């Protein structure tokens, strides 16, 4: 039944707001206040229960990092870009520091590099467990949420011991890190690794092999290999589609080239495969952590600060470093100048590849800083993959690509 134009006019004259909608489809707005959306909004058109069009309206957490970084000194940008993904703060700032180091032609000491790798892998596990938990609660499995977040606390606790804070470490500085590890740290890391290994089968039993969950995830949100490459998705979404790409593999940064680990790839391309990629990556990260901590324990005497830098430090700085392992900054570093030039760097964050483009004009601040985050590149999946699925698949697809809106919006 359609309403005639006359009736509409009558309604309008009474002050009723009348708007023609696409009468074929049922249009709903999901988010930003919606338990299944996070910090974004979907505009979904439904034909019955089938999604015919999904338009992600992102930008609800756009905090203008690129613009603000043009007015801040080089060192201040690390905490700034860190706020993109505080749950993955180490991985997300490392490529920025790498790009800066490329511009400054500076290398970190090997010990600092291993410490970075160690923290990055702890972060990756924490980030995957976070995503896993959110995914669990999206499909109504609150135990997965609680277990993921509970076990994440183990790694959060470890990084708190290493860096002094739970999430926003601001750990890297050009040419090194801000703290050395405490004496009893290796034992803790080993205990955590053994604990997490013993937990993995339980996760598989209650979540990954749970028939309800498997039915829910299988053949949902399928991205084929070629389509994944065409859309430019990254991270577990990419590796779940059978593409053997990982920045740690393609362009090893820090000391990843010397470490023995696997990059798991699954061929199916559906939500289940993407979840399995994360689980397998947690296992590999545990291996990397073990190797890094072994190296760090074997080379206890090696300094975090390169020798030539260490000699230049004032007496107090040396004392503090010897006593508590804290690397103090020099006031000269606040307004350090970086040689002009352009540099790009990429790194593998928990959600995928992060890309930095840094341009310096020789001043104390960057001329242009461009960040492309994994979630920003995965956002296109919503638009292209969701149509054709059922409404109830929206949280499944959302959770399986582990979209983190503050990261995408920057």
């Amino acid at each position, binding site marked *: 039944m359609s309403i005639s134009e006359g009736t509409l006019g009558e309604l309008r004259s009474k002050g009723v707001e009348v708007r023609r909608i696409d009468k074929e489809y049922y249009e709903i707005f999901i988010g930003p206040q919606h*338990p299944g959306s996070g910090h974004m909004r979907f505009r979904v058109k439904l034909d019955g229960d089938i999604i015919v069009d999904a338009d992600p309206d992102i930008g609800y957490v756009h905090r203008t990092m690129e613009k603000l970084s043009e007015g801040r000194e080089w060192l201040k940008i690390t905490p700034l870009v860190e706020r993109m993904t505080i749950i993955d703060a180490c991985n997300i700032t490392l490529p920025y520091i790498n790009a800066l180091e490329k511009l400054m032609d500076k290398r970190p000491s090997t010990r600092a590099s291993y410490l970075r790798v160690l923290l990055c892998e702890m972060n990756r596990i924490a980030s995957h467990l976070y995503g896993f938990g959110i995914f669990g609660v999206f499909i109504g499995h609150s135990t997965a949420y609680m277990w993921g977040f*509970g076990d994440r606390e183990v790694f959060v606790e470890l990084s708190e011991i290493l860096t002094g804070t739970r999430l926003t470490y601001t750990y890297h500085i050009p040419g090194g890190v801000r703290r050395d590890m405490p004496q009893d740290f290796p034992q803790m890391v080993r205990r955590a690794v053994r604990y997490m290994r013993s937990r993995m089968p339980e996760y598989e039993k209650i979540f990954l092999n749970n028939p309800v969950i498997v039915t829910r995830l299988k053949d949902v949100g399928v991205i084929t290999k070629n389509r994944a490459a065409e859309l430019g998705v990254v991270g577990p979404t990419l590796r779940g589609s059978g593409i053997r790409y990982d920045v740690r593999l393609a362009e090893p940064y820090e000391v990843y080239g010397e470490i023995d680990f696997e990059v798991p790839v699954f061929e199916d391309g559906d939500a289940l495969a993407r979840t399995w990629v994360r689980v397998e990556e947690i296992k590999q990260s545990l291996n990397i952590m073990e190797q890094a901590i072994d190296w760090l324990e074997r080379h206890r005497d090696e300094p975090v600060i390169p020798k030539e830098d260490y000699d230049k430090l004032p007496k107090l700085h040396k004392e503090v470093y010897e006593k508590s392992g804290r690397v103090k900054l020099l006031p000269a570093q606040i307004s350090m100048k970086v040689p002009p030039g352009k540099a790009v760097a990429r790194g593998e964050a928990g959600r995928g590849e992060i890309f930095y483009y840094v341009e310096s004009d020789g001043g104390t601040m960057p001329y242009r800083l461009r960040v492309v985050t994994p979630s920003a590149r995965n956002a296109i999946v919503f638009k292209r993959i969701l149509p054709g699925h059922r409404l109830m698949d929206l949280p499944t697809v959302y959770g399986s690509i582990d979209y983190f809106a503050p990261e995408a919006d920057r």
Partner: protein
Amino acid sequence: MGVGVGGACAKGEGKVYAGNLNVAAKRARDIILGKLKLGEVVDWATTFSLWPVHLVTSCCGAEFAATWSPRFDAEQYGALPWISPRQTNFIIIEGTVTRKMACALRITYEQMAHPKFVIAMGACALDGGLFYNSYNVVKPWEIVPVDVYIAGCPPPPEALARAILDLRKKIREKKMASNWLREGWRGDVEYPMPKEDPCKWWQP
């Protein structure tokens, strides 16, 4: 409508209604608060039933989620994150509020049922934090009235737990929940909704 159900009459209109809703509500209020002295109970019940609405404004949501994780488990205070604003009484502003989000924040706050409370979490929700001079960030206390502020970026879960405890203390001390029954507003402050419309950029 039957006759003589409530026994209350609305005078001055020349009609007799049985069970005029306003009069009945006033009377019920008088009985609950005056005769039965249930104000204390209402305040007590509200302190143990602070259900935050599911509005994640920004990245402090990570620590918000961690507060409900097994290690800190804010459910022990009776706080349970709930889905629809109609059924909750409590907003935690988790970090930065951008201009787009400010609109959502105000709408969500207005949709919630009284009595309702707000905690502002993190530096960004107080004065912008790192983004104090950003063109896209607004200050949440210009959008909704805030009860408790937490410093930090992000504040750790125990700070959020502390904020919930402080809010509980504040509700009990200022009788915020029973004051709503008495006066229609929490009573400790005037109705503080700022005049400016955060949604004015939005065009359908």
